[in-house]
């Protein structure tokens, strides 16, 4: 964050990094096929036999259905003679795509220099595409198979889900979720806001119902059961010191941390001291989760840099 550290030294650091970056780019362009994606075509052909059942065939005839799909040739197998033999060809759409994703990654990285238009553009784009993508998934994965297929089975079967059995017919019960969805969309209308409250109430009622069961069963009752440990553990060799110490410490820590969260007893005297011990154990818990969180974040950055160095600049064998 380019806060008020002297502008000069900050710009200097970034200048150096850009120069190194440019050198790496040029060097990689010359030595290897930077950011190029090669593909090999794969033919699919189907002929219809007597009763219209299609099966794959190697010798396509005029009336058959044919199309070609493409498989990416991994960098390790991409040798010169594969290219010369003409079998592999450069796929422009995927190469442009790879370069675009590398450029977008650098756009977001530029946020370190400061909040600049490149970052805002990349961010606006990701907000748009991911929202659109999620809606497409919602349509094809849930709306069509779980709702439309129940209401208009024959139509859906002939259109996009040939595998389903369309014998069910029009199932009346599924009218209700369909109506609820339409009512939900009323919230977008400026006037009809209150209509959307019916499905929202249904939503919140169901969430309250199953969440209460889930939390009481798994987080309350089961945790108390897991908390019951004997404070005097005897292994085959008689009294065992370490497991007993661990059990006592576990119990003391759990009870004192719970006492810290008591609000109807004043934290004075004995209760005050136990609460103090409780807060210490909570601090150890937070320290542990701090360490784990940091570890996670760094792995994400490492993965992205692997993408930049591997898939794009081919410095390291891309996974």
């Amino acid at each position, binding site marked *: 964050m380019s806060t008020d550290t002297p502008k000069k030294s900050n710009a200097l650091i970034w200048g150096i*990094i850009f120069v190194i970056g440019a050198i790496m780019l040029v060097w990689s362009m010359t030595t290897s096929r930077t950011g190029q994606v090669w593909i090999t075509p794969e033919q699919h052909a189907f002929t219809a036999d007597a009763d219209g059942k299609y099966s794959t065939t190697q010798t396509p005839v005029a009336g058959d259905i044919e199309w070609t799909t493409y498989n990416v040739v991994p960098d390790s197998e991409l040798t010169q003679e594969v290219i010369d033999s003409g079998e592999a060809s450069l796929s422009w759409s995927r190469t442009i795509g790879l370069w675009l994703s590398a450029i977008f990654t650098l756009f977001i990285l530029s946020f*370190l220099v400061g909040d600049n238009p490149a970052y805002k553009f990349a961010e606006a784009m990701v907000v748009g595409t*991911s929202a659109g*993508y*999620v809606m497409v*998934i*919602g349509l*094809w*994965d*849930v709306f069509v*198979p*779980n709702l439309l*297929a129940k209401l208009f089975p024959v139509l859906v079967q002939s259109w996009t*889900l*040939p*595998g*389903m*059995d369309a014998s069910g017919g029009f199932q009346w019960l599924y009218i209700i979720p369909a109506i609820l969805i339409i009512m939900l969309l009323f919230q977008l209308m400026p006037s009809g806001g209150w209509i959307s409250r019916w499905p929202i109430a249904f939503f919140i009622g*169901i969430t309250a119902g*199953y*969440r209460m069961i*889930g*939390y009481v*069963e*798994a*987080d309350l009752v*089961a*945790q108390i*059961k*897991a908390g019951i440990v004997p404070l005097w553990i005897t292994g085959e060799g008689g009294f065992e010191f370490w497991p007993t110490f661990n059990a006592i410490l576990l119990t003391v820590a759990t009870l004192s941390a719970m006492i810290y969260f008591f609000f109807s007893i004043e934290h004075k005297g004995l209760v005050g001291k136990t609460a103090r011990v409780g807060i210490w154990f909570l601090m150890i*818990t937070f320290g*542990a*989760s701090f360490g*784990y*969180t*940091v*570890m*996670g*974040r*760094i*792995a*994400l*950055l*490492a*993965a*992205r*840099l*692997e993408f930049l*160095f591997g898939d794009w600049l081919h*410095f*390291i*064998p891309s*996974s």
Partner: protein
Amino acid sequence: MLLAVSIPILAKTVFPEVISRQAKLVFDAIDDLPDGSRVLLSYDFDPASQGELLPMAQAFTRHCSIKGHKQYYMALWPLGSPMVDLSIDTIESEYPDLVYGEDYVKFDYKTGGEAVIRMITQDLRGMFELDSKGISLDDIPMTKNVKNIQDMDLIINVSAGDPGTKQWVQFAATPFGITTVSGCTGVQAPQMYPYIPEQLAGVLGAIKAAAEYEAAIDDAYPSIADNPKAQEAKRRMGPQLVAHSLMIVLILVGNWIFFMSRKRGQA
């Protein structure tokens, strides 16, 4: 930090892994199952946490494929099904003898999060009438006589948040006693420890545990050790070490300056 992470990547440094108890627990939970038992893998993460969780997901897939378990894939996050596709590509490329429909099957993403889990613990077909290729469940050999996931011998859940491991423990592991194993992000791992061992057989926390799990698979099945794709997490441990040491140095220096200024302030 940028340099601290990129230099080890370029230098391709790899460190030996010491397998910790948690990684062992997870490894045993999968390895002790008789070959060909039914395993439900739910990938509840998205490309944002792919850096941390994909090596774990791939390691789970390889381990189950070696053991010949019947793998049922599903996803509770909208961007999760492409992650399942990556695992299926791994199976098709590295274990060609496994057949779709007999050894592994993929279900589509369904909205509803925890409500999907509650649904499939009682009635699988209520949620998934077809698999992702559009074939009805009754025509697929491995799902023909599976009524709900109580018939599963193990649930493996790779999760990056909500809905994730906590929901699988609350709505599948605790009420129905299905053994569950989880791989989750560093942010979540500490919150899953109280569930071990009664409700959760083991937890893999962040990339370090993924590297340990990969090491455990390499020791048990040496044939996998030379497959570069199976060393993904180990390769990512190099930058972890340098970055962690940098973090410690930064905290120490920061606090040292803080104490100096406070002492000068008081003196």
